[in-house]
């Protein structure tokens, strides 16, 4: 592995890009970074303060934890309290609050909740505990869904009947169409997610650019990558063009990764999905196909949890996810809502917009 520090110790490239960006003298513009990891990297490298006042970066809905509606967590809490049940989850989900409780507090009370690094780890847990039902909290975009699909396929092949997933998986394209067409969300350019694009490809963005006249760039996560993509978008705006650059071409192909997409299609089918802050977006979710419905933990919930997203009073995560306001515009930010006492999920996830602003600004 190459150290990112070594890779970017030469700061000349970043300095040159910053100088070029500062020369932008056009109309004020807002560029949205769709992906939570970009939000984190932008804050981590202090990129916002390097931009001229007429260039604003706003954060989009690309953190899977942040866009997970409250009823999902309510369901997860209900499942973890069942007898003979092990809930497996990525670390980010542990701290999300729901009416004062979280998976972390449930774990402290003795529920069997395991933190995993891959959906396949939860499959291993199911193999090791044949007498218990193992439920993987499947939350993520196209980046993580292929591995979840593989876990389901393996479980089916091996006849594992004690493994289930609670899917809140989502796909990015429908959300991007919604954001691009919403007149209230005045986005002038997009920084497209690097990892998601590796699966779905960069072709979709060409459609968006053509349909809505918004330029964009697919980019990686290092400072020079991000600065380069900002510069590209600004040049497009200045030249009144709306094309898409792929600045992450080592990883992202125009057609994406057909094998990964094939796995998703084999196991999941599109469904309507509720996004925290964005509401229901038709066709933006993924539910298990009929053939794999035996692995669907929603069957255990059986309608006992209403599919409604409840925002805590005063929380503006929704507007923040749409880029309509900054975390600092929220009255709760940094006062009632902090990483120690998060109110909204944007403050919980390490990639959440509010957490990024709080930690790094």
């Amino acid at each position, binding site marked *: *592995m190459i*150290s990112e520090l070594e890779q970017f110790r030469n700061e000349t490239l970043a300095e040159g890009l*910053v100088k070029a960006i500062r020369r932008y003298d056009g109309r004020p513009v807002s560029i949205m970074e769709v992906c939570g990891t970009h939000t984190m990297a932008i804050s981590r490298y*202090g990129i916002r*303060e390097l931009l001229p006042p007429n260039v604003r970066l706003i954060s989009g809905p690309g953190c899977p934890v942040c866009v997970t509606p409250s009823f999902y967590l309510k369901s997860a809490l209900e499942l973890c309290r069942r007898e003979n049940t092990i809930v497996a989850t990525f670390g980010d989900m542990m701290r999300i609050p729901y009416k004062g409780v979280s998976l972390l507090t449930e774990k402290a009370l003795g529920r069997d909740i395991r933190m995993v690094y891959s959906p396949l780890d939860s499959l291993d847990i199911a193999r090791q505990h044949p007498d218990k039902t193992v439920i993987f909290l499947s939350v993520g975009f196209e980046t993580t869904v292929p591995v979840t699909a593989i876990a389901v396929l393996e479980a089916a092949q091996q006849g594992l009947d004690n493994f289930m997933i609670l899917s809140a998986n989502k796909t990015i394209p429908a959300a991007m169409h919604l954001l691009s067409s919403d007149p209230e969300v005045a986005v002038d350019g997009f920084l497209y997610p690097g990892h998601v694009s590796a699966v779905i490809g960069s072709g979709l963005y060409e459609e968006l650019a053509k349909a809505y006249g918004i330029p964009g760039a697919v980019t990686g996560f290092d400072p020079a990558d991000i600065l380069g993509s900002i510069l590209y978008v600004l040049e497009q705006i200045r030249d009144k063009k709306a094309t898409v650059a792929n600045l992450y071409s080592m990883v992202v192909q125009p057609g994406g990764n057909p094998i990964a997409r094939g796995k998703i299609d084999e196991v999941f089918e599109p469904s309507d999905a509720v996004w925290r802050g964005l509401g229901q977006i038709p066709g933006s979710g993924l539910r298990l196909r009929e053939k794999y419905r035996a692995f669907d933990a929603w069957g255990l919930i059986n309608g006992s949890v209403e599919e409604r997203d409840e925002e805590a009073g005063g929380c503006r995560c929704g507007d923040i996810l749409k880029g309509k306001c900054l975390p600092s515009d929220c009255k709760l930010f940094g006062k009632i809502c902090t990483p120690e006492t998060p109110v909204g999920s944007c403050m919980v*996830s390490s*990639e959440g917009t509010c957490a990024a602003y709080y930690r790094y600004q």
Partner: protein
Amino acid sequence: MSEIITLAHGSGGKLTHQLIQGIFQKHFRNDWLLEGGDSAVLETLPGQMAFTTDSYVIHPLFFRGGNIGKLAICGTVNDLAVCGAIPRYISCAWIIEEGFDFGELEEIAESMAATAQEAGVLIVTGDTKVVPRGCADKLFLNTSGVGFIPEGLRLSPALIRPGDQVIVTGTIGDHGTAILIEREQLQVETGLASDCAPLNGMLELVTASMGGAVRLMRDPTRGGVATTLNEFTEGQGFGIRLEENALPVKGEVSGLCGMLGMDPLYIANEGKALLVVDGAQADRAMELLRSHPYGRDAAVIGEVVADHPGKVYMRTLAGGHRIIDMLVGDQLPRIC
């Protein structure tokens, strides 16, 4: 002797006696311990006395670069050393879960003895408890330590002035990352090992020859470098500016942290110290540190500044700035 620890080994009777003689007195052999009194009666030395205690509850017990025993000695030795004390005596309390492997217990004791010898400290008293299966996670250790601060040496945040330099004695995040790989059985090919080491020899080298120039020292264990530096600045009239391009981070640590969404600045170290030294004498401090095997990767990572009082911030690789806050809870791996 049986091959596993049973409750009878903690009963205070014959088996306890055999355990103490067979393992602890055998490996930690010194006059005070062999006396077997209820207290070790020790000689004092001139200067101020430093006294510290810490408990060790690590999983896994054995890891690349050490084990819980080595960690327990290094941790206590380092807590004394960063206060400027010369560590002398250590106590060790064992809380052992019934069924623990005798061979592993001996291996841990052996490595404690070796580390204590390297650090020049004596394990002079101890305690052993065996708890029923399920009441502890294999083995918990508590070590307390006593050391003496040489006359005239004073370390305090109150001595820190703008212009002082911040030094770290080596690469950061090695211990926490190595433990994470082993604990979570991550499928990563790596040569990474814990940096667990007694630092008193290296730090004495610096304080003995340039005492007044060293303002403060601390070992950045849990919470990492970021949290420790925040402890330096909290409530003070100065701030600390770090330089991201000066931070020594191994490629493996940086790569793994990148994948998991963690920050090496918040990851635990067990063989590193942070020093704040007079800016004019930073080069000399670096020279001394680098002459020692545990300090060969030492680096000046930042400076004490008058702006941003009470804060730690960093000039990033991109040329921007960001605040380095204290860690909230544990770092949890991210989702994508």
